[in-house]
């Protein structure tokens, strides 16, 4: 079977009778099977997907199918799906099954999406290379010696390698956009509070967003409009009405675009990535859009702020994994204290433990003001400065990542280098604005380059239509 690159194409054939959902599901299952070495899926729900395909085919025949009929998706292993395992790619959740379905996932199911399986990721979404999974690394389909990015590596590769049409990931500091860039697909992180977090296993609650991987803007827009909006189970989600993003994808005005001088002058920026970004900016200029360089002296503070606050929240969010009520419990413990320490020592991987320790440290009484309080203040400054930019500009354009996908194991000895992979993506999470990564050509080694566009809070409609415009041009 050929590779379908949009829901629109699929739905046309489904309506025309030349394709069935059952055939589609078989196609994706075959692909998953064929590319099992990429390690993108932790588990496929093949029988359920086949059954659901029949149900949707029937609905199509009866002309009562939902608007996502024909869309086969995979979900990152941090999203709850009732009566299905949820492990966050961690040993500590061994044997755990979720008792409810995430609001966002349920809304997709209500529109007849077919879930084909759950996808590998960095443990508890902590990582930038998908090397931190308890179930092994995920490989980049373009070059399996390279990482797919992280933490939603499996979800990115699944779309890249046509194992499903769309994936749901989560983005706390770039975990959707960075792997999207590394794998050459579209990756959207919406505004904080646009999509309910109910049913998303928490890493850092004030940063976490469910994000979307797709092969084009239209699919991503459609999935967003179905998932987004108020939810009685998440009081931090916005009650703002949700536009029909998928129906407003034409961008026919002149945009005011800013780029952060510091990002393009950044030391670690790969020349080919810089060039690709510059080329886009030049194109926009030629097309008559306003493109201006702006100073953002706070850039250097974004990453430390991000790591202090996310680790602080994570240290608390991950306290519930204690071996008492569910998941893994060490068998070697003799008393309560040992049960806690050994369960958590054996159950969590190195990166998760590192971040729990860091977070506990920055929240401890003696260092609280120096780190946590200070970082909160800096977060406010970064937010104010970014919001101010959006008073003058429609978009900020910058590279998604400083480099293309690196080799597996490349940063094993230097974690700070690994953390620097998030340099350009964390700003959107620190501030809460929407951001997207779209393919922006390839480097000479054949690996994809991503371009990131940020817009003001809740301006997903503009962000998506502008991205569509960039991709078409």
């Amino acid at each position, binding site marked *: 079977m050929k590779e379908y690159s949009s829901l629109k194409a699929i739905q046309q054939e489904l309506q025309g009778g030349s394709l069935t959902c059952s055939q589609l599901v078989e196609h994706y299952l075959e692909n998953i099977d064929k590319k099992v070495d990429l390690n993108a899926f932790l588990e496929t729900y093949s029988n359920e997907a086949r059954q659901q395909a029949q149900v949707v085919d029937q609905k199509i025949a009866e002309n009562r199918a939902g608007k996502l009929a024909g869309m086969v998706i995979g979900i990152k292993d941090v999203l709850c799906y009732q009566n299905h395992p*949820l492990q966050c790619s961690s040993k500590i959740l061994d044997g755990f099954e979720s008792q409810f379905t995430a609001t966002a996932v349920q809304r997709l199911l209500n529109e007849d999406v077919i879930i084909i399986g759950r996808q590998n990721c960095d443990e508890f979404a902590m990582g930038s290379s998908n090397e931190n999974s308890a179930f092994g690394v995920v490989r980049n389909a373009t070059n399996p010696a390279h990482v797919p990015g992280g933490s939603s590596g499996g979800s990115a590769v699944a779309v890249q390698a046509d194992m499903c049409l769309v994936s749901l990931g989560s983005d706390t500091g770039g975990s959707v956009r960075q792997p999207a860039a590394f794998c050459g697909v579209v990756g959207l992180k919406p505004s904080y509070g646009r999509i309910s977090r*109910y049913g998303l*296993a928490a890493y850092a609650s004030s940063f976490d967003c469910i994000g979307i991987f797709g092969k084009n803007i239209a699919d991503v827009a459609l999935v967003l409009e179905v998932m987004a909006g108020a939810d009685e189970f998440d*009081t931090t989600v916005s009650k703002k009405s949700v536009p029909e993003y998928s129906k407003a994808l034409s961008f026919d005005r002149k945009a005011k675009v800013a780029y952060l001088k510091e990002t393009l002058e950044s030391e670690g920026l790969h020349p080919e990535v810089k060039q690709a970004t510059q080329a886009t900016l030049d194109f926009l200029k030629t097309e008559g859009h306003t493109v201006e360089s702006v100073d953002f002296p706070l850039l250097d503070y974004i990453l430390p702020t991000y790591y202090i606050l996310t680790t602080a929240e994570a240290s608390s969010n991950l306290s*519930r994994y204690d071996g*008492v009520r569910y998941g893994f419990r060490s068998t070697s413990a003799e008393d309560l204290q040992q049960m806690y320490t050994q369960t958590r020592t054996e159950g969590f991987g190195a990166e998760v433990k590192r971040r729990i320790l860091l977070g*506990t440290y920055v929240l401890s009484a003696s260092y609280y003001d120096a780190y*946590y309080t200070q970082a909160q203040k800096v977060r406010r400054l970064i937010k104010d400065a970014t919001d101010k930019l959006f008073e003058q500009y429609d978009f900020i354009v910058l590279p998604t990542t400083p480099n293309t996908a690196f080799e597996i194991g490349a940063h094993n000895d230097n974690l700070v280098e690994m953390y620097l992979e998030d340099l350009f993506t964390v700003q959107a999470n620190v501030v809460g604005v929407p951001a997207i990564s779209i393919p922006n050509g390839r480097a000479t080694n054949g690996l994809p380059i991503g371009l990131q566009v940020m817009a003001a809070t809740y301006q997903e409609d503009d962000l998506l239509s502008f991205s569509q415009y960039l991709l078409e041009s």
Partner: protein
Amino acid sequence: MPTLSDYEVVIGLEVHVQLQTQSKIFSGDANQFSTTPNTNISAITLAHPGTLPKLNRQVVAHAIKIGLACGCHINQETIFARKNYFYPDLPKGYQISQDKAPICEGGKVEFVLKDGKKAVMPLTRIHMEEDAGKSSHPDEGAYSWVDYNRAGTPLVEIVTDPVVCHPNEAAAFAYGYFKEIRKLVQYLEICDGKMEQGSLRCDANVSLMPKGSQVFGQRTEVKNLNSMRNVQRAVTLEIERQFGLLSAGEQVLRQTLNFDAQKNTITAMRSKEEMNDYRYFPDPDLAPVMISDEWLQEVKQQMPALPQQLQDKLMTDFGLSAYDAEVITEEKALYAYFAQTAKLTSHYKLIANWLMGDIKEYLNQHHLSIEALPVKPAGLAQLITLIESGKLSHTIASRELFPLMLKNPEQPAEALAQAHRLVANQDADELSEVIKGIIAQFPKEAKAYKQGKKKLKGMFMGQVMKQTGGKADPKLTTQLLDRLIAEVE
């Protein structure tokens, strides 16, 4: 050798009040006391991954009420924070509580001590939080049990300022304050006040310092005192314990202590080295709570009358003494009983006497609350009316009719009195005159009968029958004869 009177006690109390709501503070699970473990739970209560807290607005309204009742400042933007520590009965590994910007700050509680003196307890703050579950540790077996029914039950914690007291007065002060809090929350209908079920719990911070000192001594915290009496006992005991240490030249250690009510002892739970650093930070899962002026106004309008106001009312509108007013407002239900009865009879002092006398005695004996009293306000009003109309002496009412009413609550008081011939009716009056005449006629025999010559009863009965032409009811005759013979000098 210094004596206890050379010291002053600094005392501070933290009272946890379980709030009465339909559901828990952050989930839809039922907020009910249940004896079957782990029945009022869900994925949210058990802190499954992906779950989020959702604030129950009723909890905020309850917290505002207690704040208003204590004259606190209400923070109209209030923030929840996480208090991080590990314990198996704490599902999330943190308790959602409040740290900075609690819902209420300042305020005070006024109350009356046992000796009638007025006292004031200044408050630091009142904050909202969730309760933890309950662990139990059976003597047998390698496991502990955890019941999460209580986890997520809404609480307010009322924290007082440290107050300097005379050592002999500290315990009574703590007792009086705790009692007043119980009274308040019951009047506000935000807590059932059932201390045996843990609805109200008190932690007491106690320290001693030399009289006149400006520097507080090392304090200890006695945890989980679940009755007013235990608060008083534990504070007394802790003062003695610290005095003992200081007298012996030893230091008081900063400790968390446990009071054993059965053994009347205080033991250390954990020492300072094991003290937790709770790493409070604002809970990112919960937006700050914004209390609008409208909402605040709405809650203000729902405020019921408070015990102090009702005491004043009892004294001015019903002419009761300060003491009576204090006792009757001790419990909201008792006041309600009084108020209902007072609608049916205007003999207010008699109502108060009955409530504080026979009724209280009966309730105490049977460990009942006023709501469970078989005699309802209408019955008491009838009883009082009977007495006031002269149909019944107070003694008969108390000894005979009231016990009958307790056994036959569905029957009207007057009917019961009639049936048991307690009421002085026409027939009985006539018969009494006849009997009195006969007694006057046979004074010697009457005296001998009274002194125990029971044989003479036949003679008297015969005389009564003779004089009434046999119409006298023998049962009534016997009753009246016994009563009138008893009155013979």
